[in-house]
């Protein structure tokens, strides 16, 4: 079977903090394109992995970068002994064989890459491959999911209106403190009390968002700190390594954040 390697065998841990699972299932039932919004490290990628497992569909993930072009998504001609051969890109594979295609950090990709998804995301559900003169009709299982972080405070790094309006959206934020502590405890393997402290520390850094920090500590960062702590590192040192130093190079903010963390412990 095609795309076997893209199937998710074991259930990825995901702790829902709202009705996002039900909403996504409804969206998938009508194959509505979905956009996952939210700050980095809040569980967008984990969520889509969980949903792909739940729905039993293969998941093709593409991490977009600023050099990403339409050809990287659709495919390209390669040379072999006989001449050229066409090689499907990840998007085309998903469209042909029926996978959930997840484009992570879509705003990073070049404009031409974001525009080729347009015919896939309306009633047509088509992918034109102009280089081969081919029209690929989407497999019934195909769904497009994109993720983006609206926190990028840059005008050029925003989705075009014509792209945005093709998607339903789920808004992800950091989960409520108790839920987040549960997640940190599960993922990092630390005691619930330690997890709660870490979440409290995380909230301190999120208070500084936009006032010294571009972004507060993500759930992922808290899990990192938790994992260090689980290996016997003192919590303060773990937080310094996993939170303070990666978050900022500004000495004042670092000192303030370190002091706030000390106050939490």
């Amino acid at each position, binding site marked *: 079977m095609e795309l076997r390697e893209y199937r998710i065998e074991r259930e990825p841990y995901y702790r829902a903090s709202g009705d996002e699972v039900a909403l996504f299932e409804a969206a998938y039932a009508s194959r509505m394109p979905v956009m996952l919004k939210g700050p980095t490290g809040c569980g967008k990628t984990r969520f889509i992995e969980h949903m792909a497992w739940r729905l039993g569909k293969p998941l093709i993930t593409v991490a977009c970068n600023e050099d990403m*072009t339409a*050809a*990287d998504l659709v495919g*390209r*001609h390669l*040379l072999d002994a006989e*001449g*050229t051969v066409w090689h499907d890109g990840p998007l085309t594979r998903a469209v042909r064989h029926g996978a959930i295609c997840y484009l992570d950090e879509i705003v990073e990709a070049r404009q031409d890459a974001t525009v080729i998804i347009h015919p896939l995301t309306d009633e047509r559900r088509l992918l034109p491959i102009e*280089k081969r003169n081919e029209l690929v009709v989407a497999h019934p299982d195909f769904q497009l999911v994109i993720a983006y972080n609206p926190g990028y405070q840059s*005008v*050029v790094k925003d989705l075009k209106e014509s792209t945005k309006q093709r998607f339903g959206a789920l808004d992800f934020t950091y989960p409520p403190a108790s839920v987040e502590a549960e997640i940190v405890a599960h993922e990092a393997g630390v005691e619930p009390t330690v997890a709660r402290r870490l979440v*409290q520390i995380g*909230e*301190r*850094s999120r*208070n*500084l968002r936009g*006032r*010294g920090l571009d972004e507060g500590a993500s759930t992922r960062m808290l899990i990192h700190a938790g994992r260090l702590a689980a290996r016997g590192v003192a919590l303060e040192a773990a937080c310094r390594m996993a939170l303070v130093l990666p978050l900022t190079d500004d000495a*004042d*903010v670092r*000192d*303030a*954040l370190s*002091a*706030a*963390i*000390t*106050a*939490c*412990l």
Partner: protein
Amino acid sequence: MSEVPPRPEEAYARIRAEGGAGELHFSDVERQLRHFLTALWGRDVPMRALSAGGDAPEARRSGFDGGVIRLPDALPALAGQPAEALFRASLAHLAAHLIFSRRQLARGLKPLLMAVVGLVEDARVEHLAMRAFPGLRRLWLPFHVAEPSGALIAADLMERLSRALIDPGYEDANHWVAKGRALFFDGKDQWEDPDFSLRVGGLLAGDLGKMRVGLNHKTYLVEPAYRDDNGGLWEFDTPPQVPPDDHDLPLEAMRAEPSEGQEPDEFDGAARNDPAAASAPAGEADPEAGVPVARYPEWDYRIGLQRPGFARVVECPAPPSSPALIDGLLARDPGMVRRVARLVRAAKFSRPERLRRQAEGETLDLDACVEAAVERRLGHAPDPRVHAATRRRFRDLSVLVLLDVSQSTNDPVSDPAGGAPTTVLALERHATALLAAAMAEAGDRFAVHAFCSNGREEVRYQRVKDFGDPYDNAAKARLGGLRGRYSTRMGTALRHAGRQIAGQPTHRRLVLLITDGEPSDIDSGDRRYLIEDTRKAVGELAGAGVDVFCVRLGGTSAADARDPARIFGGRNVLTVERLERLPDMLPQLYFRLTA
């Protein structure tokens, strides 16, 4: 640690004696403290430095009042802790008050009662804060240095009680201290109640009264040093006495800004009233007299029409000075020269260009593929570079740096580099020298022109360096020789600059206007007239495919920025208040150009 804790006066004398070494100024830690407060409580509370005023000990106590935190403008290292920790402990304590304290009516309360209630309230809010942030105890504890003693002095007993309430390991046999401790911790469940302090404090103050230990409330100072004067706890019928400079402080800060912004206007006013300046002929005796080269229309917003041929541009020679001046400026900070040069080099402006025969790329280069296939069938080794890619490769940009050299550029600005006071013109010259060196090194096409005006018939235009010219010592000498005089008829100068750059065969054309203010001229009383005309000129240039970008030097206030934003568009104005920030700002400029 001494047996008998020093009296406040002694403590303060000690603080002052030690002061010189470990003293830290509020301004040095203000940003850090602000972030600390925000991180902990998610609040942005205004903070003011409280000038130490005379030598009064109160001056070194923090305080809070009406949602404003006052911190001493300098604090020493104390009790083996760095001054930073003292600032932080003070702030954390004040924040606990702001979050958990409620104002009480002070009417009819004796000073002793208020002091004891304040002590209990301090402990109460600290314990509430420590429930959320247990680590705060480690911040506060080192400052509690009171030791048990036989002395029965109220201030001493209170300091010991303060310690007993926060330090679980502290032992004190004194009956009053023990009672206070018991009352406080027995009421643990009532800590949330703001009246708790009033009840417990009332009982304790009564006992203290019976013990006949007096409190000299004139010299009483809340200990330990990180705690505030608790003035913010009480609602007085009459305003409490506070040092007058404290209240004036925020007001002064606000007053300073507009006067700064008004200076250029005032100067122009003076020039208008000066008959010699206004009626000076186009200057036969002037060695820098120029030749009229063009007339430009001006836009009159009042009639909504162009006034054709209204302003005349006179090109004047730029008097040279020594090129050593410019080289000297650059030699002062070679690191900055390198940074600016790197930024300029890194920016790419050109049409995307298709590169063929690449080793890798987005598409196959068909011609190369066919050739490769033919080669192979002929039994030759084919060229593996069969891909094509698109890149922006060249710096297809010409820049005209247009300097405002009006009289107002002779205004002093606050010193950017930590040296002697400087003028806007000197800043302009320095910034231009940096940019020019970088652009010359990168091989860009650029010109440096300067303008000022003396009425609409004499818009003086000087060429420091033209597009075709090399950036040599002669150009540097002319840049160094620029002098600030006359006024700022920006619109006409921009139109002329636009004409100079229009012929440049590049993809992007940029007029970079470096100025200190807004347009004005001696024959235009209506301020808005020249602003509107300049706005129109910027629009005309944009229509001709020339980007106009304004770099404002020296100005800082937001009100100053409104008119330039109106003229050039908000995203085309860059305010550089300190020259060191130029390298930080340049990427913004380039980003806006390429975006």
